[in-house]
């Protein structure tokens, strides 16, 4: 019989890093060397993290397959399980099952400009496709990252930006809803900044992730800029329990976000009822 689909692999917390006041990044290492060798994923997929004694929750892989020494997640404290996760220290044992879902179709994006638009902890879901594109930068043209957070203090992955910018043809545009002293970047909401910087849709793909309200207005701006629905890609978040299309709660129409998603083009989403 095949392995039990609900049983996690054991993993050890190797490193905990404080990103912002409510986001921490974790590095996990699978305990079983055999599993470590075969466990692989693609940018865009997600995993189920198991905090023994508390429960399971879904997170996207923060690191891409090109940087797979550890499994990394960036986690915002919002509920019972994430609170327990924020208590974890290096050495703690957790469970990991996955990977689940589909991935960003980079093979279709060869030779294109990539525009990443992220809001808040949404950057955690885009870090893996960003770093994947940076690691395989020769396959793509310009890589632009537009990232906004509530305040300069809420900016995640600050210390990664300088490395990202070293990659040829890479630009990072940062914005905060409200500025602060010493903030040298833009001030304003992501959709407004997007309008200002006026990126061309020619030969481009926009990859967006953030709070629903940001996505809504970013979509409008992108369409105004001339992006077609096929050129816009996002990753959806729904409540999930199994990750396998069985527990019945993450469906939009007959599509299960866990199994058929979470990555969708806006062209696909337009065909679905507004229930996500």
């Amino acid at each position: 019989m095949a392995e039990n689909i609900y049983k996690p692999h054991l993993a050890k917390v190797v490193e905990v890093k404080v990103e912002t006041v409510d986001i921490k990044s974790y590095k996990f290492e699978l305990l079983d060397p055999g599993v470590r060798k075969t466990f692989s994923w693609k940018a865009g997929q997600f995993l189920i993290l198991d905090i023994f004694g508390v429960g399971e929750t879904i997170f996207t892989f923060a690191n891409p397959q090109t940087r797979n020494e550890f499994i990394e997640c960036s986690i915002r404290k919002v509920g019972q399980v994430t609170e327990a996760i924020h208590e974890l220290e290096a050495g703690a044992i957790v469970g990991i099952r996955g990977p689940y879902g589909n991935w960003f179709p980079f093979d279709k994006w060869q030779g294109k400009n990539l525009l990443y638009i992220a809001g808040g902890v949404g950057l955690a879901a885009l870090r893996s496709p960003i770093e994947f594109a940076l690691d395989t930068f020769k396959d793509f043209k310009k890589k632009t990252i537009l990232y906004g957070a509530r305040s300069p203090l809420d900016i995640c992955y600050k210390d990664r930006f300088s490395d990202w910018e070293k990659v040829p043809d890479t630009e990072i545009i940062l914005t905060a809803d409200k500025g602060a002293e010493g903030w040298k970047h833009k001030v304003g909401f992501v959709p407004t900044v997007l309008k200002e910087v006026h990126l061309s849709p020619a030969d481009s793909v926009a990859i967006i992730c953030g709070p629903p309200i940001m996505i809504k207005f970013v979509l409008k701006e992108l369409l105004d800029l001339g992006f077609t629905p096929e050129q816009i890609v996002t990753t959806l978040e729904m409540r999930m329990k199994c990750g396998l299309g069985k527990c019945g709660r993450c469906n939009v129409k007959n599509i299960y976000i866990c199994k058929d998603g979470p990555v969708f083009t806006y062209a696909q989403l337009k065909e679905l009822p507004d229930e996500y």
Partner: protein
Amino acid sequence: MAYLITKENIKNLLTDLIKLKAVFAPKKDAEDTVLFGKLSSSSEWHGDALLTHTTAKDKVYLQSETFFKIKRNKSGVTIEDGPEPEETVIFGCRPCDARGFDIIGKLFNWSNFVDEYYTKRIAKTTIICISCEKPESTCFCTSFTKGSPVNETGSDVLLTNIKDGKYLAESITDKGRKLIGDNSKYFTEASKADEEAKVTFKAEAEKKIAKKLDLAEVKRKLEPAFESVYWDTVHLPCVKCGACTFVCPTCYCFDITEKAFDNINSVRVRSWDTCMNELFTRMAGGVNPRTDTKKRFRQRFMHKFNYHVDNFKEELCTGCGRCIKACPVSIDIRKVIEEIR
């Protein structure tokens, strides 16, 4: 191959089976409610009721199933599997219930993800089903392609009471053939006439089912009906109790939680859940795509008669009518889907 078995020999068969396996059959509980209970004697089998209050679903798809035990201590974490399921017989369920197992079995094996808890348990379960002689006013199994008071889908053995006290016994699967082979002393070979008697039985029973829905038409109407104003009012009587999903032979949605006993021991548990519950889709942080009753009510009918048909080419319903009987405000599933506009 068809056989005959007398009612008396059915009881003898049950007596023998009880010695070897866990046998569940319609049985009165302490409050005289007929439910699937574990028999300790064949006389406990209460065969008169057409439908038990709840289905036999929970004998295979447990209402609360321990996936595994978790132990956390200084040396690390150990995960201990639960016991293997025992040999089980479900006796005296109805074709609508048996077909429910066939339907949810496909879900538990969907897209190469095999749910071993369900799969192992159904593999060890033999289902002896009894055809319905007197369908009730809430029955509507004949609306479904495979539905009928004598349908064998999901059963291992199908018994049909063709003449007073004599049942035609048909083995449907290898498990069914084995059960009859192992207990051959209680069965005699059926004649052509006996098999033909089932045809008459079927016609008579089907005549008693007044309501037949055109489910292809229902699907056609549901497809464009997501934004219909129909949902604005049809849900209003609903009290969101979830009884409809609880008694359903095909509702399968579940939750996975952890039950911690102390700082060392916990168990991972899968429990039935219901789409009628507000928490079902609410995320940490509060975002919920199905905030109000209207959306959850719509989801239940869309799932059963539209989305599931897209994915599995059959409805997520067998027409048992239990949800109609269980509903405290008399919402009739037949009426809801028939009047969609």
